[in-house]
């Protein structure tokens, strides 16, 4: 039986339905991500799990216990906020120990547990610092420590890395994942960043307009998008409508065809290989380890990624090429 189950969760604010019929189940120790654009309902679902919003209908159960109407204080669910939400009047030790103090733990236990978790999040030496004396990354680690020290049944992370710069974000996401694995903590992470979702999650729920568009293992969601929305959101997929697909590839489909940019092979313009398409490079973007080309073929512009191995790999605009796309790399989406 799943550890966290959500059945037919529905949330309406006045006339506006924010979450439609949301269903999910999570196993203990799993790291799940709600991925989607702003306003898709992912944070609202998280807030309903935390107990900060009451569902219009539906049921939330943790470990077989129905917590739908339970007060947030009694749920034993930890939360890390995007804005850190550290108590400005308390130093690092007091912030982290707050939850234990509320649970009336003995002072010695609080001291020991706080010291352990400070070590875990690598904040040794900052014990007496106040939040305004810490950097963004340090504040978020205090917030994480504060949520972890009370040993929550489920840890909720509401876009915890969004306010941080790229380097700190990368370090912190590795640290969060490492701690989550070590503690075997059931975790739900909310983000609009597909890279974050792919690197951290066991499973991803892609959300759009209050509904789950697709749910599955990270690699599956990326390589096998179920809908046009997921294909657009997860990567720089080339999405071809039925008419374009027919014109370019001679295939008859009803929805859209999604082709990943890295799955299109660029061959020499003089190549005589069967099943290839003629194309002309219109422009390119250097993205570090890859070069992204805009290649026009049959009047349709395709994005194509190639590894940036040497400077001589770069093909200038106007170069005639042949494109090879395997049928296995084409995916029909709704």
């Amino acid at each position: 039986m799943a550890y966290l189950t959500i059945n037919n969760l529905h949330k309406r604010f006045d006339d506006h339905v924010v979450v439609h019929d949301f269903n999910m189940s999570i196993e203990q120790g799993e790291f799940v991500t709600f991925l989607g654009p702003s306003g898709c309902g992912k944070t609202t679902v998280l807030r309903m799990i935390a107990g900060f919003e009451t569902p219009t209908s539906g049921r939330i159960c943790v470990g077989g216990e129905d917590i739908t109407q339970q007060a947030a204080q009694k749920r034993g669910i930890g939360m890390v906020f995007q804005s850190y939400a550290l108590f400005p009047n308390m130093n690092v030790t007091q912030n982290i120990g707050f939850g234990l103090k509320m649970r009336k733990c003995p002072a010695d236990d609080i001291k020991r547990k706080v010291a352990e978790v400070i070590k875990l999040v690598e904040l040794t030496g900052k014990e007496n610092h106040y939040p305004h004396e810490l950097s963004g990354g340090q504040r978020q680690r205090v917030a994480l420590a504060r949520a972890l020290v009370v040993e929550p049944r489920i840890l909720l992370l509401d876009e915890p890395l969004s306010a941080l710069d790229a380097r700190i974000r990368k370090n912190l996401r590795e640290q969060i994942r490492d701690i989550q694995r070590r503690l075997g903590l059931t975790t739900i992470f909310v983000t609009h960043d597909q890279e974050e979702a792919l690197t951290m999650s066991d499973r991803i729920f892609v959300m759009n307009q209050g509904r789950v568009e697709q749910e599955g293992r990270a690699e599956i969601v990326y390589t096998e998008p179920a809908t046009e929305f997921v294909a657009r959101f997860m990567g720089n997929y080339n999405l071809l409508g039925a008419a374009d697909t027919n014109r370019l590839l001679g295939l008859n489909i009803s929805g859209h065809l999604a082709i990943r940019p890295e799955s299109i092979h660029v061959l020499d313009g003089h190549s005589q290989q069967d099943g290839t398409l003629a194309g002309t490079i219109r422009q390119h973007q250097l993205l570090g380890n890859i070069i992204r080309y805009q290649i026009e073929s049959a009047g349709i512009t395709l994005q194509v990624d190639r590894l940036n191995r040497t400077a001589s790999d770069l093909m200038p605009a106007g170069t005639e090429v042949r494109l090879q796309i395997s049928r296995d790399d084409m995916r029909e989406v709704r």
Partner: protein
Amino acid sequence: MKSTSRLGAWVAIAIGTLYFVLPLIATFEFSLKMNRDGYSFEAYKVVLADPGFQATFGYSTLMAVLTIIVGILLVVPTAYWIQLKLPRLRPLVEFITLLPLVIPAIVIVFGYLKLYNSSSWLPLTGNERATDLLLMCSYVTLALPYLYRSVDAGLRAIDVRTLTEAAESLGASWPSILLQVIFPNVKSAILSGAFLTFAVVIGEFTMASLLGRPAFGPYLQLIGANRAYEPSALAIIAFMVTWASMGLIQVFARNARPARKTA
């Protein structure tokens, strides 16, 4: 052009300063003239030694402290709840808290006398302690515009919702959230409101006079009507109390840690 406008500004400041400071200097100078043979603090000695001064100042100080305590207990949870759960009611509450500035104190106190006179269903003017209670409540009403605005501004400077939710997720009860998370973070705003309240209550005349209580305001009026130099000394003392309150507001505002939404 720029130097002309700067000169104009300095002239305006000078006129304004003179308008405010000259009467004070004159009052102070007059208060030092009680002894015919030169300047002295005789008027201050007389005033400070007067049992009437000690009694009324002590009474008003006590009333101010009680007003502040009751006002804080009323305003902080109200402003917090409005911010957290009932933001739609904010305009209504702001309107209500502004009413004491619009309705003259004499109207309010006549209303009280009508409602709570000795033959009413709640005869708060029937004995001294009950009248003290009524006076304190009326001071709370008078202080509402200052106290509510200070506290509301303090609450807006922190992210009340997220701090509350963070505390809730850590298992904190509502009293713990208010006392350990919200109060400490709006402390300087509460103190600002408290000092304003203190200054208002110390000098208040109408309500204390009409309710017949021995407060500092009626004492000031009594001395002013019967003595020559002592009223000037009292006026300067009253100003000093007000200035001390304002100075303390500045001190606490400056000592408050840098404003942050949620740190």
